[in-house]
């Protein structure tokens, strides 16, 4: 899910940037440092939408750098266990398939794909029902439920399932193209 939240960060600025454009420098540096990063707690920072407050700077002894506490609003994407969302399939193999929902990767193991769907290898590997009516392949759009998340320093990785009511394929690229 995407959220609009307020975060705070202490920014260090070199004294050469002090002057009439100090604020602009700070904001530009903030965007450069923060946008595109990921933390386990807040998820992926997609975009900074505004700066709420820049506090009083504090000179650091010895270096001359100044630390400013900056409060900013941003759009983050944070996946949660139990969340249901739509995703695009990026890779299919006999272990299951990978899908992407914005910045996050989700793996759906073949144990969590309905039992009536079989893996078919070939040019376009896919999972298909015995009657061929439903097919999951690269670029398919699926609705899935996140059942687990793994967080490391710079990425969040999810495990999902489509083995539940109202989950599964919502569009078939074969039909659309």
């Amino acid at each position, binding site marked *: 899910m995407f*959220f609009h*939240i307020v975060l705070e960060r202490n920014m260090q600025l070199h004294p050469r940037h002090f002057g009439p454009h100090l604020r602009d420098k700070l904001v530009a540096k903030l965007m450069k440092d923060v946008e595109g990063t990921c933390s386990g707690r807040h998820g992926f920072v997609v975009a900074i939408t505004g700066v709420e407050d820049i506090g009083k700077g504090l000179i650091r002894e010895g270096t001359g750098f100044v630390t400013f506490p900056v409060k900013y609003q941003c759009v983050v994407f944070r996946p949660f266990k139990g969340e249901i969302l739509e995703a695009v399939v990026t890779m299919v193999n006999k272990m299951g398939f990978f899908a*992407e929902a914005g910045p996050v990767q989700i793996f759906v193991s073949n144990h969590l794909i309905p039992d009536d769907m079989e893996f078919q290898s070939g040019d376009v590997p896919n999972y298909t029902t015995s009657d061929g009516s439903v097919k999951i392949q690269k670029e398919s759009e699926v609705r899935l439920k996140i059942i687990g998340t793994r967080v490391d320093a710079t990425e969040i990785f999810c495990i999902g399932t489509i083995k*539940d009511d109202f989950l599964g394929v919502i569009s078939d690229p074969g039909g659309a193209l």
Partner: protein
Amino acid sequence: MSGMEEEENAAELKIGEEFLKAKCLMNCEVAIILEHKWEQLQHMSDGGADQVSQVFEKSQAYVKRFSRYKNPDAVRQVRETLSRYSLVEFELCTLGNLCPDTADEAKALVPSLVPGGRFDSDDRVDKMLNDLSLIKKFE
């Protein structure tokens, strides 16, 4: 931190105090925000548009693909309409993103609707979904 890592479960709205109180965004709302930001970046002199992160690009592609409503007025209306049903932000956005067709589907996708007596009868869920589909129809 409130120990949310242990018990996290969106189906029961256990997403941590911080996110429960935060404003959730539907995909269509994110699409509008990112589009706006994208335009701003392109107007910047030092080629700001070249520097967008992969996270930004992927998110933008995602929300463009999965926005149910395109027109900003409709997007606003969806939020207004859903706000009348005493939903938690997270529920509101899940419904707005997935647009379920039936009450059963809505309750399966957002299980937290069931307890608490906000939706004693399916009629109320149906009415809400109907309101949503009307917005889509007249978009």
